[in-house]
Each structure stands twice: as C-alpha cells, then as structure tokens.
C-alpha cells in the first residue's frame, strides 16, 4: 500500500516544523498525543481485536474448518445465542453450543460473523487502497505540474463530485455481474475525489520548498520527485482520511447489502448478515442486533482512530490543549 514510501526519514511535517527542533520525532509526538485521547485509544484496541478476529476468521472458516459457516442444520434454526446444540446435529459445533445462535437455515451465526469479518474488512481495505492509488496519482500530477494538467484533473474531479455517489455505485454494481471484487473496485473508483484534492493542495504548497528544488536540481525524474520526496510529506492527512474512508466503505457495503446488491450468498459479510436479519426482527432479534452492533463498533473504532490521528497531527489544536 501507500505506506511503504513513508518509511523514509520524513523531514518533518511542513506545518509542524516550528516545534522545538530536535526534541522528538514527529511519529513519537503523534503517538504521545494519541495516547492521551482515550476514545482513539479504545478505537485502536477494537481495531487490533478486529484484525486478529478477521485473520482467525479466515483461518478457522476456510483453511482449517473449525467453524463451518455454510453448514445448514435445518432442525436447529433460529436458536438464541449460547443455545446448546441437540445431539442430532452433526457435526456438533465447537463447545456443543451456538455462541451467537443460529439463523433461519440453522447456520452458526458465530461462524458466519467470523467469515464476514474478513470479508467486510477486506472490502474496506481494498476499496480504500484503490481510492488512494487514484487519489495520490491524480492529486500528485495536478499539484506537481499545475497549469493545464491541474485544470484538467480538477475539472474531472468536479465532474465526479457532481454524481450522487451512492446512486452511481448502486447502478454500476447492479449492472455488473455480482462479485466482491466489483464492489470493492466500484467503491474505490467513485470515492477518490477527496484524497485527490487533499494531495493537490499539499503538493502545491510543497512545490516551492527547498528540498523539492534540491531534488529537482539533482536531476531526479519527475515521478521520483513526486512520489519519493513530495508525497511522503503530504501523506499524514491522507492517511487520516483513509482511515475514515475504510469506515465508510464498510458502511457502503452494508447499505448495498440492504438493497440486495452487496456480497452475495453463500459468502457472508456483516452487511448481508444484517440485511438478512431484518426479516427476523421479532422472532430472532439477535440476527439483526449482533451484526448491527458489530458494524457499529468497528466503524466507530475506525472513525475514532482517524479523528484522534487528525487531532494529534494538527499542531494548532494541539497547542490549545
């Protein structure tokens, strides 16, 4: 992903360079600020748990099938969470209990949520990676070259901003053959405009700085100057918005699922478990509440971490604390 070039020693954030010189690294300072923000810290913990869950989910539902999300046990349908399995069920679920109950086909909701955690998370990350690639490339070109290139790219951005994004996503996803990849691509391709504008604004400001002049004077290629020297200096606010974009991509998938165009069965995503669950709101409320609360928690965590990072990176707000 785009994080790789950021590993270079970053010369210091353009707006934060007025802090006392040579005391702490930018990253250390940001971490120090972030640690004070209890909400953001809680968000980080949730995200860490989520990553573990998603990886375990992939492991335990597909590679070593401990929890089988596709196993249909019709006599065991709509059991509440923690219900003990009847002996007839074969094979028995782990611990002999359905940790989160079963759905209308008697499938283990816990297994489906596990499988869905990886699917939902990867939709968020792949969509945002696509968005970042497009946004960084177009924003980089516009901000570096300025002039006619800039005008052209920004007009195109304006055009994209005029579309009702969700409606466009829905249209394209509905017309294309249903697949997870199409959903990821369409979400990514329709939501890069913010990143592009961000990067362009940052690069326009960086263009006249000495280190850029030096890099160009050394005869480096334009691409190298843009992507190795300038973008790492503009990446911080972009990463903040990317964190929040992961959250909104997960929400978009659940909205698509609600309309029937999300991840298609038999694959589970949190969005389609939630969407299926609404038919059983009265008989089996856990089918609706569990995925809903899970999405809420995860999206909330992404948003809180994103906003916490933004506060920590904004030197003006920091001074006022």
């Amino acid at each position, binding site marked *: 992903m785009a994080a790789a070039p950021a590993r270079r020693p970053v010369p210091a954030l353009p707006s934060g360079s007025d802090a006392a010189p040579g005391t702490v690294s930018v990253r250390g300072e940001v971490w120090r600020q972030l640690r004070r923000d209890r909400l953001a810290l809680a968000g980080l913990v949730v995200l860490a748990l989520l990553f573990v869950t998603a990886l375990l989910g992939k492991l335990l539902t597909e590679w070593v099938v401990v929890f089988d999300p596709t196993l249909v046990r019709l006599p065991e349908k709509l059991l509440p969470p923690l219900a003990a399995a009847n002996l007839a069920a074969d094979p028995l679920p782990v611990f002999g209990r359905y940790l989160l109950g079963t759905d209308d086909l008697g499938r283990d909701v816990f297994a489906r949520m596990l499988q869905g955690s990886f699917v939902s998370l990867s939709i968020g990350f792949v969509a945002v990676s696509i968005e970042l690639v497009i946004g960084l490339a177009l924003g980089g070109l516009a901000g570096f070259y300025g002039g006619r290139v800039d005008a052209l790219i920004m007009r195109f951005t304006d055009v994209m901003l005029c*579309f009702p994004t969700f409606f466009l996503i829905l249209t*394209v996803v509905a017309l294309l053959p249903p697949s997870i990849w199409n959903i990821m691509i369409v979400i990514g391709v329709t939501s890069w405009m913010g990143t592009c504008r961000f990067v362009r604004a940052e690069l326009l400001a960086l263009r006249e700085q000495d280190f850029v002049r030096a890099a160009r004077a050394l005869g480096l290629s334009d691409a190298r100057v843009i992507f190795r020297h300038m973008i790492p200096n503009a990446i911080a606010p972009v990463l903040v918005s990317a964190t929040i974009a992961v959250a909104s991509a997960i*929400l978009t998938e659940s909205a698509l699922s609600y309309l029937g165009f999300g991840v298609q069965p038999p694959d589970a995503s949190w969005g389609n478990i939630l969407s299926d669950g*609404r038919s059983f709101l009265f008989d089996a409320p856990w089918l609706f509440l569990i995925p809903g609360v899970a999405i809420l928690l995860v999206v909330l965590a992404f948003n*809180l971490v994103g906003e916490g990072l933004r506060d920590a990176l904004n030197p003006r707000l920091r001074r006022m604390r």
Partner: protein
Amino acid sequence: MAAFLVRALAQRLGLLVVISMLAFAVIHLAPGEPSEVDPMNPRMKPQDIARIRAAFHLDEPLHAQYGYWLRDLATGELRSFKDGQPVVPRIWERFLNSVPLFGVAILIEWTFAFPIGIRAAVTRGSRFDRTSTFLAYFLISVPSFFVAYLVVLGVVNTFQLPVIGMRTFGFEPASSLRLVMDRFWHLAIPSLMAALTGLAVMSRYVRSQMLEVVAQDYVRTARAKGLPDEQVIYRHALRNALLPFVTMFGFLIPGLIGGSVIIEQIFAWPGIGRLGYEAILARDFPVILTLNFFAAALTLAGTFVSDVLYAVVDPRIRLG
C-alpha cells in the same frame, strides 16, 4: 459581476455535458442490458432479444444512442424502457414528493448542527463537548437502515406514529387539518432519519471550524478589548466560521439524493431515490440516465448559488 455570472454558467453547462456523456458511457459500457433482465426465460429467443435491442436502439453505436437520448430529452419524447411512459414528468413528480423530505432533513441538520457545534467548540473538553462528540461519532458510524429499523420499532410501539408512505391510505374524507397533520407525522420520522448522519457530520464540522477561528488573533484582540463573551463568539468568531458552510450548500445535494435511496426504500416513500432504485432493478436506462443528469444539474445549480453567495458574504472575494 455579469461577466462572472455568464462565465460560471457557461462553465457549468460544459460540465453538465461532460457529466451526461460520462454517465452514458458508464451505464452503457457496463455489461448487462435491458434485454438481459430475464436471461433464464426459455421463451426469450435470440430474435426477440434482437428485436428488443433494435426497438431501443441498443444495437447502434454509442454516440448515436447518446444523440437519440439527447434529442428525446430535448423534445420531451424520452420514454421509459419499462412501461413506455414519458420520463421527465415522472422524475419531476417523484422529485416533488422528495422535496419535503429533503427540505425538512436540511432544516433539521442546519438548525441543530450550529448550536451543538458552537457550544461544543466554546466549551471545549466539557461534558457537553464530550457527549456530543461521542453521539456524533455514534451516528456517523451506525448503518442508517439499522438505526432506522430500531427507531421505527420504538416509535410505532410507543407513540403510535405512522411511518410508511406519505399519507394514510383512505384518509381523504377527514378534515383538512387532520390531513395536514397526517402528512406531517408521515414526514417526521423519515426526514429525521435522513438528517441524522448529516447532522452529526455538520456539527463536527461546525465545531472544528469554530475552534480554528477562535484561535485567530482577531478573536484574541476582541477578547482583549474586554468585549463580552457572547459578542466575541457570535459577532466576531461565528461570522467567519460560517463562510465555508456557504460552499457546502451545493455539495449537499448528491448526498441527499444518494441517501434517499435507502431512506425512501425503508419508509416506502414514493420519491426520487426509490424511482432510481426501481429503474436500476429494471435496467431502465433512460430513467437512470436522466435521473443522474437531473441530480448533476441540481448539484451544479447548488454550487452556482454557493459561489454567488460566497462572493456576497465574503467581502474579500470580488467577482469579475
């Protein structure tokens, strides 16, 4: 001023043409044609499909199809693939149904976002600030249909409010006051649900904007002069914090139309979002395209108004 207006209008017309071409290309290049809605139907023979394609000009090159669409749109002859009804009057009728929903939602957003955001910024770190911050994150993070379903359950059971459709069916003989109240109650919950996310985002934005402005030197100067707090906040700070919101006005529209797909689907509201959803299901290209075109035109009109307002409000900007 006149020169600016003409240039801005011309630029937007150009954008509108580009947008319509792009929408046309995206929709027609994606696989999946109206003739393929029912691929499993054994009675659909290849000749039938060819006939359908010919009837809708789908067998002709893209630019010719675009020409047909533009011509029909201009002459008002544009008809739906699905039922042959004229498209423009239908979109207009559905749009009028959506207007109260959008209007009340915007009203709710703007009337509550400002006081909440300002109070949170002024009392930064207080209990009010923390509570409103957390609530805002909560509302941004919750899937809209999840919260709508839960609210509907609660509201219907405790307040006996109607939540489905625009009016109670068979209610016409009632007095006009009851009719108005009926319309109002039907409108209340959907518009509140449509406003929630926007309200949360807006109040956060107001807060951060206020924080930026309050840190400025001229606010400190006003404080140093010994002006009362209210005057500093509402006369000096708020006025400047408001400026960016003028430009947000135009970009509210795509969000509202996109969001209305879900809200109108939940509440069976016969509005523009639902029309779009039905058109997508039926691959009704003329309706989808014209709806996109209409939304883009509305957005461009909104940004135009924003630009003009911005120049009126901010004396530092001179048009020309």
